[in-house]
Structure formats: C-alpha cells, structure tokens
C-alpha cells in the first residue's frame, strides 16, 4: 500500500509501469497542479524506485544535473548530481518543468533517452551505463507560450508522451475529500467553483485553478477556517491580480459560501 494517494484517471498507471519495464523514458504534459508530481512519486513508491526530482529553471546547468568537483580538507573530490545518482544506482530521475531549463542543459539527456542509455561525464572522462532500474521522466506545462523556449524536437521525440489534465469532477471531489477530510458537500462546492473558473482560462485569466489549490482551500476549511475566507486566500488571490477578475471571482465565492459577517444586515 503506497503512502501517497493517487487516483488513476485513465490508463496512465499501466502505461508508466509498462514503460518502466521496457526502459522507455516518459514525457508528461499538463497544467500546473493537476497531479503530475504526485503521480510520479506514487509510481516510484509502487515500483520501489527512488525518485530524484530536479525542478528546472533558467540557470540550471549541466553540472547541476550531472555533478561537480567539490573541495574538502583532503582536497578536491567529485560529487554526483541527481541525474548521475539515478543513473548509477537506479531510480526515477524526474525533471520537472524541463522547458524552463536551458537547451544546452537538456542535451545531456539525449544519450540517456535513447537506446544507448549511457551518460558521458566530460569532467571525469567517465561514460556511465545506466542501471537497469534507471528511468527518465520529464514534465512540462504546454500552456506557457514562449516561442524561444519550446522543447527541442530532437529531445521531445525521445520520449513516450502522456497528457494530464485536471481530474473529472467526481474524481476531483474524491481526491479533495481524501486529502483534506473535508465534508462531501463542501468538496462538491469547491469542485463546482473550480469548474466555473476553468471556463475562463483561455480568455480572461492566464492559469486556471489547480486541484492543488482546491486541496489547500479544503485543508483550511477543515482546520476551522471560514470557507469563504479559505477560498479567497487559496483560490482567488492566487489566480489573478486584476481588479475586475478578482471582483468576479470574489462574487463567485460569495455565491457559494457565505461571508463571515452577515452581509444582508450590512446592506439593509
């Protein structure tokens, strides 16, 4: 029984396990907070593999992945990076938001992601052959439009691809309840709110509300927070800084959850 809670949406578990058994690398696409990382952690647990997570960013260099020389009192020594560790010992190396990394950094993955399954390290002159249990998983959010940052086709075409989206309403409700112990009615309202906000994502707001944010709201509610306030802090304020949008989102929340003070008394 795994420690993590993950609810399968489609055939992703089966696909992941098959890819793992065949030593194929996986690319996961999906919006922020839809459960990509959780899925991989769960898979790691189920397959008994360590997960080495690297969150990619602009300045991530190849040395951050592969490793570097360090100094101690005896002199210099070589320190493996997360990728090298996974390659040597077996495990899942998960590169989150790989699109954020510089293109020259991701090139080190090429020889690992194809039939060669080797990692050459220039600085030590080593060529490491990947452990049979080594698995490469990368993820990115295709919603970001940046023409200068897209994934190189030569990198992309080395992976089996898997698309993630926010879970269906019933599944999402189940996830929220399981994660936060919130009552069913509140969970349902949260899912309804999310469903409505998500209708705005391609027009009025940039990023939509994630399952993660809904869980945050639910957790605050179970801790005794007023649901209206919980939603304001964990959903509304996180989604936009625009006054008009904030006003509408606030209105939506107030339609589902009553504000802490009685508005009707204030208004009359």
């Amino acid at each position, binding site marked *: 029984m795994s420690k993590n809670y993950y609810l399968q949406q489609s055939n992703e578990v089966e696909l992941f396990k098959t890819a793992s058994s065949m030593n194929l690398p996986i690319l996961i696409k999906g919006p922020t907070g839809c459960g990509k990382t959780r899925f991989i952690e769960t898979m790691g647990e189920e397959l008994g593999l360590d997960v080495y997570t690297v969150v990619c960013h*602009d*300045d991530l260099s190849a*040395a951050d992945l592969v490793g*570097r*020389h*360090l*100094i101690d009192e005896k*002199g*210099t*020594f*070589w320190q493996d990076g997360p990728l090298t560790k996974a390659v040597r010992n077996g495990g899942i190396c998960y590169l989150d938001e790989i699109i*954020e990394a510089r293109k020259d950094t991701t090139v080190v993955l090429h020889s690992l992601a194809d039939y060669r399954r080797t990692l050459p390290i220039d*600085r030590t002159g080593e060529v490491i052959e990947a452990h049979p249990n080594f698995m490469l998983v990368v993820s990115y959010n*295709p919603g970001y*439009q*940046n*023409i*200068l*940052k897209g994934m190189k086709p030569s990198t992309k075409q080395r992976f089996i691809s898997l698309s993630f989206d926010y879970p269906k309403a019933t599944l999402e409700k189940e996830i929220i309840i399981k994660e936060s112990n919130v009552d069913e009615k509140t969970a349902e309202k949260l899912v*309804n709110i999310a469903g*409505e*906000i998500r*209708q*705005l994502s391609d*027009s*009025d707001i940039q990023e939509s509300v994630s399952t993660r944010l809904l869980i945050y709201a639910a957790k605050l509610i179970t801790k005794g927070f007023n649901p209206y306030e919980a939603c304001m802090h964990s959903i509304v304020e996180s989604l936009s800084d625009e006054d*008009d*949008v904030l*006003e*509408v*989102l606030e*209105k*939506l929340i*107030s*339609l*589902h*959850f*009553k504000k802490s003070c009685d*508005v*009707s008394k*204030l*208004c*009359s």
Partner: protein
Amino acid sequence: MDEKVGKLWAKYLTKKTSSIYEEEQVFFSERSRALKIFYHLLGGDKAKSINITDKRFIKTSRTFFEKISGTGKTFFLSWQDEKGIYLPASLAYFPSKKYNEMHYYWLIAMLSKININSNNIIEENMKTISFLVEKYSGFREFYDYAQEFMIKNSLEFLNHQYLSPLWIYPALSNSNKLLDFDDEDEPLREKEKQDETETLKMKKKAEQINDKKETDGLLLFLPESLMSLLEQVNVDRQENDTFDEDALYNAEILDEITLGQKDANLSSRLKMDLDISAETLEEYPLGKGHFIDEWDYKKECYLKNYVCIKPFIWINVEPIKLPQRHVKMMKKIQHELDLMELDRIKRDNLPYGDEINIDSWIDYKSHKNCSNHSQRFFETYERKTRDISTLILADVSLSTEAGITQEIRVIDMIKDALMVFSESLYRLQDCFAIYTFSSIKNTKVNFHIIKNFKEKYTDLARGRINTIKPGYYTRMGAGIRESAKILDKQQSKNKLLLILSDGKPNDVDKYDGRYGIEDTKKAIEEVKKKGIIPFCITIDMDAKEYLPYLFGQNAYAVIRDPKKLPKVLPEIYMNLTKGN
C-alpha cells in the same frame, strides 16, 4: 406658468409610479468588464456581446397613477438573442447599491443558464431561478430578499408578474428591426462605406494632384524671408514628384532603403514644416513592383510569378512624438521591460573575466597536472543579448475600417498598438521592422513600409504609423511571403514574424474561403522552413476555427476586445520572448 406646473406634476407622478432608488443606482458601464467575465465564468457563450437594452413596449394592466402619468408602458428588460445579451443601462430597484449590483449578477447568471430557444419563457424562467437558488446559496439569499422586498414595497410587481425585474424576457421576433437597429445598420453601413470608400479613394487621388498645384501656387504668397528657401523647395519637390524608376528605389533592395536616404534633402523636411502634411501626403511607389508565387491547392502546385507585390512608402509624413494618451501605458510597460533587462547571462570557463568561477577553479585544481590544463576558470556576467529580429506585418484591409465604437475604428486600434509596441521594442533595443499590406486581386498587393530593419525608430516612423489607412482586401499569403523574404536576410539567431490581422485571408477573386486559407497555410509552412517563427494576433472572433489550422496550437492569440490591443501586444511579445 402652466407649463411649469405641468412639468412638476409630471415629475411628481412619474416619481410616484416608479420604484427606483436613484441614489443607490448601479450603472452597467462601471461594471461591464466584471459582468462580462462573470458571464464567461458561468459558461455564457464567449462569442456573444453584452449590450445595453433599449426600452421595450409591453402591454400590461396599468395602475391609475401610471395611466395619468403615461408611465408603465415601456420597460428596460433583460433579454438575449443569438448575437448578444441585453441588460438595462442601470439598476436601482433596491434601496442598497450592494443589492442593485447583485441584481446585475443575477441577471447575468439567468442569461447564462436560460435556454434561449424555449417557447415557454415563464416555465424557463422558473426553471432557471430554481437552478440558481439551489446551486448558489448567495443567489438564494438575494432572490429571497428581492421577492420579499418587492412584495412588501411595491405591489405593482405582483400585479404585473410578467414584468419581474428578476426575469429574462424573450427576444422580440422583430427585434432585428426594432431594437437591434445598431447591429442591423452595421452591415448595411459597412457595405455602403465600402463602395463609398472605394470611389472616394479614387477621387482623392485625383484631387491630390490638383491640390499639389494649388499648394505650389500658394507657396508663392509666403513671406519674403522664405522665398529663397521656397525656390529650393519647389525644385526638389519637382524632382521628388517625378516617378522614379531609379535603381535606388528598386523593390529588390526594398529592405535596404531607409528613410534617412530619402529624407536627406532639406527640402522635404522644410516642406513638411511649411505645409499641412495631409494635403501633400502621398504614396510613393518603390519601383514597379515584383512578382511572387502563390499556392493553388486544387492544382497542388505553385502559380509561378502570379502575384504582383507593389511596395510603397508614405512620403511627406509629419513626424510626431508619442501621443500623450499612450504615455501612461508606456510607463507601465517600461516597468516590465526593466525587469526583463535585469536578466543577465552567465558565461563561465573563460580565460579572463569578472570573478573566479569556483566550479571551474576546482575542476582545474582537481586535475592531476594543472599546468597542462587550460586556466579557464573565470566567469563573467553579460547583459542578455536577445538576438531577435521581429517583423510586424499588419493587415490593413478595408474591414479594419469597421467601428468598435462610434468613435474608434479597428484601424485606430491597430495604429495605437503599433505605436505602443514599436516604442516597447525600441526601448528593448530589439531589432524590428513594420510593414502593412492590403490587396486587390493578384495584380496588386500593396506593401507599405512603415519602418524597415535598418532605420532607427524616430518621430518620422511614428508619423508613418499615424498615416496608416485602410486599404482593400487580405491576400495574406503574399504578405507573409514578402515579409519572410525580408526577415530571411536578417542575421539574428531568432526571427519572429508577427502578423496582426482582423480577419480571414480573402480577396475579390478566387482568394476567398478555402483557396485563401490553403495559400496562407502554405506560406506559413515556407516561413517555418526558413527558421522564422510565425505568430498571429487577431481580433477576429471566428479565428479559432481556422487559426489552429493555419498556425498550429500556441502560435496565435485571439484578442476579444480590440481596444486592448495596444496593451496586449507588448505583453504577448514579452511572454513570447522572455527567457531567451
């Protein structure tokens, strides 16, 4: 006196019969964007516009007071048709702003959920109301309050149950004629305009020639102090006026021509100072034009040298400063640009530099034989060189003359957008050029230079943006191919072709519908093959149907509100090119 008494009497009666709390009035205009977002949020059709409704006549039983005051015949009702939703311009039924505002949200919610095609509008209203009060506790509270308030305070509402302000009413069967006259007029007006503009344009050209002569004559009356200059003006002017087939203006080196070269003579600058530019403004052809290919999807082959591209430049343009109305927005954008400027790029493993890179140094030290290892352990931070060339191709077809509001046309927004955008690119020090195009069949694709890559962005370029006028049709493939040719010559690593359009590719000949789309798609494929990244920004609401096909996902943006174009364009660009 009689009149005065009458007026007071009418005012008193009207007030008595209306149940309006004027001081607590909430206006649609102040809430329009929020209401629009709310409509989308509840799943309302995003293609529908949100409008203010006119008064509608409804036959109801009127009270005595209403009869003598002449009120109670027409009402501001909320309704919708296939094109849009219609709401009262203001609401003031309740004695509190909060509830009047809530009333708007209620109506929006009703409009987003109600079935427009239902025959039984009463049943449909009841169904929608019960859905809303059941799903949203906030609406239940409002509805209960509103019902109670109306029963308590104005029995008229009960008498005319059909006229509850909380309800949505059917669109009039003849709504197109009566209430929707604005929309109805639009296509007619546009059609008229189209013909008008075409003939006008022709007339204008002829007039321009006459004008010129007049102006020449007029100049003779200028003060004596200017006479010596005037002679020069006239001489140079004549030279400029003669059709130049000089190789200098050959279209093949179109990209090389800078206004600096053209404008180098003092005369034209002086002339601009002397004359009102609008009268002397003219299109200057840069050579006779040249031919390019077009893709015929039916024949599955290129029609060789089929389209004639005619490059033009506006001359005698009045240089202008950045208009005051953009200054505030520009300041805001500048702030974002400054943040981008902060990005620096680290270069390490250098034989010299600002600091020692500890990693490289350790690497160096860890080598057994240090002397054989090159001493490249310095690092330096450089400002990011963005290394990008952007060509903006604006579609200035006749459709851009359509009005967004009575005062603002699409073309004005395109001009404003180009102005703000150019300013941003200039401050970013990115290399950019601007061209506009419009076409009349394959025989004439007008291709106007606003600013080429070599020219500096100056007041003159701003002036040229300001002179942009709507042209004819949209032979997009040709415009794209011509732009790609220019971009291809640029040396930078990244090349972006930004297409600014308000509609589908079309022309009066076969270049309409599928033919135009297929040719444009082909042109975009060619662009991509050249390593240029195309990106389309459009204000065409139907664009989602064909843009993914033309450009692919993530290579286009639809701007729903053309008024936002000036603000959104730099944002899109920054998003596209951030983190290069």
